[in-house]
Every structure is written in C-alpha cells, then in structure tokens.
C-alpha cells in the first residue's frame, strides 16, 4: 500500500455514483416483463438504500452525538459566561462576543499567534526537509536499508507523553545530555526549556524528531511511484545525481509534497502534549500556542475559564479548517492528475 494509492482513494471512496451499487434484477433483462417490474424495481432500489443506510446509521448517529454536539456545546460555551456556579445551576448568561473580545485584547493573543505560526511552520519545514532527504537516502536500497527504515518509525509510535518526557530530561539545563554534548564543543550551558529565548527551540526540536518518520514514510512512498524509466532516461542524458534530484525527483514529488506539508500543518496546529509536558507554554507565554492557551485557560489549574478557553479553541478551529479545505482541494486535484 502506498500513499499515492490510498490517499486519493479515500478522498472520494464510495458513493460517487449512487446507482452503481444497485444490482440489476434478473427480470429486467427480459423486455416483456420490464414494464410490469418497474414498481417492484423501485421498491427494491429503495430497500437497497434503506439497508445501506442501516449499516451507516450507527456511525452517523455517533458523529452527531460525539462530534457535532461537542462542537456545538463548545461554540455555545464561547458565547456565554460559564463559571463554576454554572455547573451547579446549569445556567450561564449569554454574553455575545464578549469572550472573543477578551481573547483578542489579551496580552497573550499576539505572542500566542506568533508562537503558533513559528511552531507550526518551523516544525513542518524542518520535518519535511529531513524526511525527504532521508527518503532519498534510503531509496538507494543497500543492505539493511529496510530494517533501518523500519527503526526510524519508532519515535512516531511512542506515546507523545513519553517522547516529551525524554526530551524534557535530555534538554535539562544542569543534567541534560544535550548540554553535556555541547560542553564538549565549548558551548556554555543553554537553558533550553527555562529561558524565554530558547523554550520555543526546545519544543521544536522534540516535535521535529517526532514528525520525521511520518514525512520519511510518505515521501518514500512518493519516490516509489516515480517510474524507473524516468531515471534511466535521465542517466542516459548524462545527468548527475544532483541534477536528477532537482530536475526530476523533486518536481515529480510535488503533489505528494503538497499533501504531506498540508497534513503536517493541520496536525501540528493541534499539538498539545509535547509543549504542555515540556514547558507548559512557558516560561511566561514564550512557548504558548493557541492549543496550549486554550487548555491552560480551561484546565490548567486555578479556576477554570471555560468560556474564553472555548473562544481560543474556536479561533484555532477556523485556522485548521482553512488549511483543511486547501488540503482536500489539493488532494482531489492530485487524484485528477493521476
């Protein structure tokens, strides 16, 4: 299974042609009986729809109760003033856009927006570059290459909380192995996670490490879809490895790259565990993204400010959806090109 095969396929899946699934009734082939069969056929078609939706109904209900309803509650929450008392009385006054105004005016807003942009773009740019470079390297197929490539997947499978804990200790100012290694080169102690100047770099390093395997695997699958003849032609023309990469491989990987980058963007916007475990968004607001800000307002200890937290979350969802729509459009276009 490769990305190119499965990604576009899941893009549209079934249902593009609603009639294709209706099996022709045996009687329909006999012209004399056709007219008489019509009402029966229609009822059979209806029955078919009914049966099919019977299979889908549980998931449809599930999506309404466990996706649409929480989203609605969240939206509703963001237009009310929900306090601890609201849990007891069940009532929260409607306050219009007051929570959004509060969030936009908060001193945290601009730093959080900046951190979200830096964290997201920094992560995907480096992950993608390293993932692509590694994919090209492993595509050379040497002894052990398959095993080593499989081992590269491990960081992606670990619980995020475990990865974040490891990096938090490795980047520890006094006893971390990273600072010990830097000391060998004469670089003095860096307070990775405890200084506002470097905390973002600290969480970026961890998040990039986690994201490399995904980029590697997808880009490797993309490489597998480039026909060998293209390379043969290029080597016949006397192109060297560098030219082959920039003139052939890279342009042919454009559709896969677009999908990988956009997916990376959407999923990095959501990242919560890594930053929360390593810095809790601090020191100060120095590594506070929207996801962290929202969590901190709602569940970060102290009295929960659920309503502003919901407002921050809804701003995040708007950003995610914009890129989500771009992703789906790109994916459909890629599929058309194939």
């Amino acid at each position, binding site marked *: *299974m490769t*990305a190119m095969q499965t*990604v576009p*396929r*899941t893009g*549209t899946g*079934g*249902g593009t042609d*609603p009639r294709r699934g209706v*099996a022709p009734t045996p009687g329909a082939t006999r012209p004399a009986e056709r007219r008489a069969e019509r009402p029966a056929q229609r009822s059979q078609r209806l029955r078919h*729809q009914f*049966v*099919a*939706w*019977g*299979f*889908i109904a*549980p*998931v*449809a209900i599930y*999506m309404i109760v*466990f996706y649409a309803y*929480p*989203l609605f*509650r969240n939206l509703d*929450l963001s237009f009310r003033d929900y306090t601890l008392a609201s*849990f007891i009385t069940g009532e929260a006054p409607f306050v219009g856009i007051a929570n959004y105004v509060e969030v936009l005016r908060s001193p945290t807003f601009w730093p959080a927006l900046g951190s979200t942009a830096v964290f997201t773009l920094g992560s995907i740019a480096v992950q993608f570059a390293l993932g692509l470079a*590694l994919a090209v*390297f492993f595509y050379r197929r*040497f002894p*052990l*290459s398959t095993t*080593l490539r*499989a081992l590269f*997947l*491990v960081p992606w*499978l*670990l*619980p995020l*909380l*475990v990865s974040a804990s*490891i990096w*938090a*200790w490795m980047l520890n100012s006094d*006893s971390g*192995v990273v600072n010990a290694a830097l000391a060998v080169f004469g670089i003095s102690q860096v307070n990775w996670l405890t200084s506002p100047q470097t905390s973002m770099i600290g969480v970026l390093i961890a998040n990039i*490490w986690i994201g490399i395997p995904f980029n590697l695997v997808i880009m490797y699958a993309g490489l597998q879809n480039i026909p060998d003849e293209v390379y043969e032609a290029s080597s016949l023309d006397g192109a060297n490895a560098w030219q082959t990469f920039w003139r052939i491989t890279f342009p042919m990987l454009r559709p896969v790259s677009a999908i990988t980058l956009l*997916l990376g963007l959407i999923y990095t*916007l959501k990242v919560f*565990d890594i930053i929360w*475990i390593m810095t809790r968004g601090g020191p100060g607001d120095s590594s506070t993204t929207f*996801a962290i800000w*929202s969590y901190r307002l*709602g*569940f970060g200890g102290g009295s929960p400010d659920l309503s502003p937290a*919901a407002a921050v*979350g809804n701003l995040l*969802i708007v950003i995610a959806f914009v890129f*989500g729509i771009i992703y*789906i459009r790109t994916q459909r276009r890629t599929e058309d090109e194939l």
Partner: protein
Amino acid sequence: MNVRTKRTVNTTIGVILTAIMLFPLYWMINVSLTQPVRLRKDPPDLIPIDPTFDGYARVLQDQLPYLGTSLIVGLGTVALTLALSAPAAFALAKLRPRGGGAVDFVMLIAQMIPGIIMAMGFYLIFFNWGILDSVLGLILADSTLAVPFGVLIFTAFMSGIPEELMSAAKIDGAGAWRSFRSVVLPISRNSVVTVSLFTFLWSWSDFLFASTVNRGGELQPITIGIYRYIGNNTQDWNAIMATAVVASIPAAVLLVVAQRYVAAGVTAGAVK
C-alpha cells in the same frame, strides 16, 4: 568506487543516522537504569554504571493500576471503533448509497478538529450525563481519535474487493448483513488488524482526554501515571523513565509483531 564499497558506505551512514535518531530511546533506557544519585552528575553517565532496577520496582509498586486502566480503555476503544466503522465502511464501499460521498467528506474533516476543542465539549456533556471521570467516558472520548480513520481505511480496503464476490454471495442468497459478516469481513482481516493496532496505540497514548474528561477519576491511564511522577516535586527521573519504558512496550510490540501493518497504516494514515 565499486558497487560493493558504495553499498558498505551507504549502510554505514544508514546505521549512524539511525543511531542518532534512536538515541533518545537509548537515553530513556539508560536513565531508567541509572541510580538516582548519579543522575545529577555532570557530564552524565553514557552507560548505566552500577545499574539499578529500583525504577522498575517503583513502576510495579505504583503504576500497575494505571497500566491496567490503559489496557481496558484501549481494548474498549478498539471494540467500539471496529463495531462502528467496519459496517459503515462496508456500506460506503459496496452498497454505495446516496449521500455516501458526504459521509466520506465528514470523516476527512472530522480528523482535523483539534482535540482540545473536543475535550471542552466532552467535559460539559459528560458532566451532564454523569460520566465525567469514568472509564466509559474516556473510551467514548478516545474513540473519536480513531472512528473516522477506521471508516476511511476500511472503505479504501473494501472498495478493492472484487464485485464478483459480492454477486456470488448474492446469488447464494446472502443478504447484505450475511455478505458483510461472511464474505467481506474475513477478506478484510488485514485492515481490521491495522485499524485495531492504531486505535489501541492512540488510545494508550492519549493524554489530552485523560487529563480533561478523566482528571479526577479513580481509574486513570498510564499517561496520567507518568504525568503525576513528572508533576511531583521530587522529579525522580529514574522512575519516570522506567515508567516511560513500560509505557512504550505496546509500540515496540507493534513494530516487531506487525511491521507490515504499521507501514500500511502510516501511508494510509496520510488521511489521519
């Protein structure tokens, strides 16, 4: 350079790159075996000199209930996800009703919703339903990580099953449910394994839902167990890393036992 030396050079570079990539894992194991008194040494010990298993003893002493909860939540989430997604995918792939495309679209969009937003919605809803801080609530919340993924993976796989098989089943008098149970589901075994593995892993790894909808529950998963260790003031990294090693076991098992399913899931997971 002849082909053989070139290959050797590539393998050497590959081994070095992999070693760098996996160094944090080595470090986790190293720290999990290091005496707490030696942990603050500068520079740190590169290998566990005079190793200790106290960290693991503490895991057995403190963390077994958390591990058990994670196991129950993981299995519950897998069961719920399979029960919901496989039949729906069968209908989308093989019965192709009107509006099926819209269902697919919803599944794609659903995966893009940041978890923190879902968590806040669940918090209020579960409070009203009285299942806040319960294993059931956590299973329901965790299943939202996997159900859309399951539907999309199953649909992709089942679309590839030949129509002839379906027609044959129909001629034999099998209804839709029978065709699903006896024909499509057995053929889809690989995708069942892939979806189950990833669902279990995501549920096992979940921290966001555990720390919101189950923050005060009696039964809490292993991610909360580690978080408690990190949060308390002693900052006993030896025990933290020992717990981290144990919490990584499912991922390791997955990679060893089911490597090909993992690769399939990651690439197909481009929709995740």
